């Protein structure tokens, strides 16, 4: 199976792998404008040069109670809109082979919804997540 570049990051205290095709850039987010009444995972809006991005609190998007204090974000584009997905730390970018989740593994809560499989780094399994699954959509909200 062909290898694919993955970004290894820490989200909500867990190490995850993100398909590099989904990643446009990695930035540090400046001041964020809150969006009152928006869904909880929406931290707000931030300016990225002349572009306005919607900042998504990945921890909240995963249904966790915590509130990410991270300033670092992965920029991804979904349906023509740009989102900044907050990540705690970025560790590595490396090619890996995507494997299916082993049979019988039942992931907790929203992790299951975002999981796409796993990669193995030096024998350590890392969950591959789909960023677009973490962006709350209007369809899901209603």
């Amino acid at each position, binding site marked *: 199976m062909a290898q694919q570049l993955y970004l290894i990051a820490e989200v909500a205290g867990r190490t995850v792998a993100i398909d590099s095709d989904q990643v446009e850039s990695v930035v540090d987010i400046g*001041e964020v*404008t*809150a*969006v*009152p*009444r*928006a*869904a909880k*995972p*929406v931290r*707000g*809006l*931030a*300016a990225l*040069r*002349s*572009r*306005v991005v*919607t900042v998504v609190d990945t921890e909240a998007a995963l249904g966790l109670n915590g509130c990410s204090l991270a300033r670092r974000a992965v920029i991804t584009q979904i*349906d023509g*809109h*740009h*989102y900044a997905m907050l990540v705690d730390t970025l560790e590595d970018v490396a090619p890996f082979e995507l494997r299916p989740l082993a049979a019988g593994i039942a992931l907790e809560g929203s992790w299951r919804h975002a999981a796409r499989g796993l990669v193995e780094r030096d024998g350590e399994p890392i969950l591959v997540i789909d960023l677009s699954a973490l*962006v*709350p*959509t*209007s369809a899901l*909200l*209603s």
Partner: protein
Amino acid sequence: MDDLLQDFIAETRETLEALSGEIVAWESQPDDRARLDAIFRFVHTVKGSCGFLDLPRLERLAHAAEDVLAQVRDGARVPDRALVNAVLGVVDRIGEIVEAIDAGAALDDSGEELLIAALAEGSEEIVLPTPVTQRAPSRSVRLGVDLLDRMMSGMSEMVLARNELARRLRSGEIDPAVEAALERLSLTVGEMRDTVTRTRMQKIDALFSPLPRMVRDTAGGLGKSVALQIEGSDVELDREMIEVMRDPLVHIIRNAIDHGIEAPAERRAAGKREAGRLCVSARQSGNQIIIEIADDGRGVNVERLVQKLAASGVRSERDLHALPDAAKLELMFHPGLSSKDIVSEISGRGVGMDVVKASIDQIGGRVELDNIPGKGLRIAIHVPLTLSIISAIVIGAGRQRFAIPRQSIEEIVSERGEAIRIDQLGGTPIVTVRGRRMPMLDLGELLDIGREAQGPRMLVIVGAGAGSYALAVDSVLDNEELVIKPASPVVMATGIYAGQTLPDSGLPMLLLDSAGMARVAGLDFSRDLNAAFGDVVAEEVAPGLPALLFDDLDGVRRAVPLAAVDRVEKVSASQVQLAAGSYRLAIDGRIVPLAMQGALDGRERLSVLRLKDEDAEVAYAIDEAIEIVTLPADISPSRSPGPAAGVALVEGEQIEVLDVLWVFDMHVDRIAAADAPLCLLAGDKDGWLATFVRPLLETAGYRVTTTLAPGETPAVVLAADAAEPPTPAAPVVRLRRKRQAEAGDDSVYRYDRAGLLFALEARIGMRGGR
């Protein structure tokens, strides 16, 4: 308008260039459908644009060619060499005229009639002259949108970089020379931004400004009268969108005037105002621009749409009937379906609505239809807002700033202001601004961000569709032109934002959607809508009758319907003569019968109402005209025919309304028209008929004679007693001396005026009926 013309020239020139190959190919292969369609689209577009730009010559040419091509498309005509040549002639001519317009040169229109005539079936083949090109160097270029987009985002970057630079420089000591340089940079960047923005954005006025003329001409051509109302011309829209919207808008408006708005007589019969109303408006709502075209015409006959479509065999009538109402209405966008069968210059041949739909789909927009049969049709085109610049007010709430489109703001007042009252109505705050009561929304509460600032709040009165409400905010900060971009779906899902923007501060800001906030807060204005609508209808249905109030000669105050009064004039008593039993007024070199109630009483001067009805004229003497009033619709009619038509209540006073018809009936001099029925008097030995009956007959509108001129035939013969009628061809009415008729006698007693006239009319009528 010049911009539009330039665009039209550039576009036509470009299409012509692309088309020249097609035309040649079509010439060699006239049954090639794709080529035919390409040429058809070209002339159709030219026709549409010409109507818009008021270029009648081009329009006539294009329309003629379009007609012929449509016939070819329908298979009604075979494209022979003569036809191809004629069409090519027209296309060439269009090119020549366009070049002439661009060069500002005059081009004589000789030969155009010939070109059009050559399109007719069976006409002679024409010799194509070699087109003479006289192209002027163009001052406009066409650019790809991508390039403009890159320029636009580069510009935004530059603004932000300048802001950053300025911030850094000002944080420390700054050399005045550097400061001046920065100042100049700022100024240039600001100007550049405006210019660059203008390359991409255009006021929708560019789309709306030619409409008044177009509506007037279109309506005039159909013998209709249409009042156009335009709103929201200053909404800015992407140029690309404006280009795409142009043709659909023209189609929709022409359709509305041609098919929607009824002829004046029909409107009157339906109890509407004679002049149709057409309202074209643009507004921003959420992340879209809504262009609305509403008319108060007859609406769409959905049943007819279904029948026509079923008849064309696309789907069975049962299938179509099973569709939900909204889907049935959408059938009007079905290709090749025009709800009217008559092909007219105005709205073409049904290429309209499906083309409209296709264009709007292309830009990701959608069309909403709101049809009220008999009352009108409202078409709302929702255009997605890719990018727009709006003038906005920046307000503060909590620790945040928000923008509100200026367009939706009616006014801004302080809550401590004069004539402002805030009350709690059962727990709901309401505001009374100068007597106008409206609901109040606290932005801080709505957004759950609390209050930061102290002091009085500001009330921003915003319109939200049908009603208005007061939005309480902490502060009103600024007035800015903002580039609005759509926010991500998750932000839009809140329903209270219209988009996002990046002001010069570099910190993103949200644009509030006033209608959305009202919806989220549960404010319901639908009742207002009904009330407003009801008011308008009531006003229109009973407009009352405008009338002139006057004091009559006999001292009575009367009213006369204004429509009957040609003018009021002062005349001298010497112009009035009592002659031949009635008063007559000599005026304007003519003698006009003068009617009056009361006496002239030796007045030297008097006022007269000149009453006119077609060619009949009567003057009515009055004491004094007072004012124009509106009579209520219900007038109590008088019990017997006479000078009063009835009594109306005007400002609590009972006013007699003059019966204009009665005045005409009693006073107009009867002049027998040349085609009046001829009545022959027969057996008038003692001259009784000629003396006594003749005036009666003439007053009743007959021509009377005692001897027939050669070739004349009477319509009826009036015979005294037993006199033998000279011409047996005409019906005969006999007069008898005795009051009582004997059995089988159909004669009329000679003093029975009414009976005589009735008998004459009946006999003539019988003859005519035979």
